[in-house]
């Protein structure tokens, strides 16, 4: 309590957050990740391969968008931005800081499962390093997120196994998807410029590079049992959360379309 109170007391006047460099980067990267994967998943609503799966992926999308909303809410407190919606919808594509793992377009169902698997396992490791964050609003939210993400891991783990152990088209498509995601697989762990400050302040428990090693060890163990190739090293770690490319520019056009149609409207 004492330690966290000290952090809170150093809050910038007018802003409601810890006065630690990099907190905004951390929240933005997490919120953008959840928002982009949530919106991508929501594209399956109505067209998923099975009705049961249509419900599941829609519910997953709703969870992720809800997580994004909560994280953007904290980011708004820290930066003084108007609200979560402003952060979610009123930026140019180049200002988003999600991992490039999420920049490959919706693709087929195998692509969705491959991307979800790599993302959910990464997110679980990242959340694990934030449960003891010295800023209580973040630690409290992370504690809640972890409880929900458990179901996401269960869901995507079953699908990975189903596709990976069914020879022919299911396995071939999964292999193709993993190949496409390839060097972007580990980009959730792209080091943040403010990382040293986050570590010093006790917000992030361990450096991203260490978290990435843990994540790779876990994924490789699962992939070996399914005879899937290990994710290759990140091609360009400095650009792991920038230069989002054409598929994201399209997605951005989609998710901002209604908002742009009547700026400032109350819905």
């Amino acid at each position, binding site marked *: 309590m004492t330690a966290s109170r000290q952090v809170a007391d150093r809050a910038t006047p007018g802003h409601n957050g810890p006065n630690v460099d990099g907190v905004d980067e951390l929240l933005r990267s997490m919120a953008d990740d959840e928002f982009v994967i949530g919106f991508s998943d929501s594209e399956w609503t109505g067209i998923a391969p099975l009705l049961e799966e249509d*419900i599941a992926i829609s519910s997953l999308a709703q969870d*992720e968008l*809800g997580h994004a909303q*909560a994280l953007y809410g904290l980011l708004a407190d820290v930066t003084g931005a108007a609200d979560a919606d402003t952060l979610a919808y009123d930026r140019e594509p180049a200002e988003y800081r999600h991992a490039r793992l999420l920049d490959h377009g919706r693709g087929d169902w195998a692509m969705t499962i491959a991307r979800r698997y790599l993302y959910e396992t990464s997110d679980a490791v990242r959340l694990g390093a934030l449960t003891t964050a010295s800023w*209580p609003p973040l630690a409290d939210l992370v504690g*809640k*997120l972890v409880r*929900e993400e458990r179901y996401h891991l269960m869901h995507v783990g079953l699908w990975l196994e189903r596709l990976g152990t069914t020879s022919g088209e299911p396995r071939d498509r999964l292999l193709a998807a993993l190949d496409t995601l390839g060097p972007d697989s580990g980009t959730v762990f792209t080091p943040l410029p403010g990382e040293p400050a986050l570590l010093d302040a006790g917000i992030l428990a361990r450096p991203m590079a260490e978290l990435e090693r843990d994540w790779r060890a876990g994924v490789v163990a699962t992939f070996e049992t399914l005879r899937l190739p290990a994710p290759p090293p990140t091609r360009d770690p400095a650009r792991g959360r920038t230069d989002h490319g054409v598929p994201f520019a399209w997605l951005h056009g989609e998710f901002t379309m209604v908002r742009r149609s009547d700026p400032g409207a109350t819905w």
Partner: protein
Amino acid sequence: MVTEVAPEPTVETVRRALAEVLDPELPVLSVVDLGIVHSVDVDRHGIRVVILPTFVGCPALDVIRASIADRLAEFGLPVQVDTTFEVPWTSERISAAGRRALAAVGIAPPSEPEAVSCPFCASASVVMDSAFGPTQCRSLYYCRACRQPFEALKAV
């Protein structure tokens, strides 16, 4: 003619009023039975209720907030409804009465996936069809004994 007189606003009368506010997605449960009421504060300036979201992105939250404000309007004080994650809502917070009410409408009360039993015939011979049901907080199951599909609240 009998005129209804609003009760004196106290923590106790406010809690009693909250026991009549139903969850919009599970309208057999009050917000009190659901265990989402974190705190109630009353003073002469107003009433403040803090609630715990069941799920971070629960879309029913705004409706719940509005229902609480509506129900408490009779006290004639400004009502503020806030949310917090300071204490995580967990499925253990659902009251015994709440669990019975859920079972009565065919929704298995929350327990770990391997401990769920059928709300219709009580058989433990059930399978989870999907962790994700019609709302964020529910999963889909099937009972092998009475051959009924049913829903269960997720244990979080």
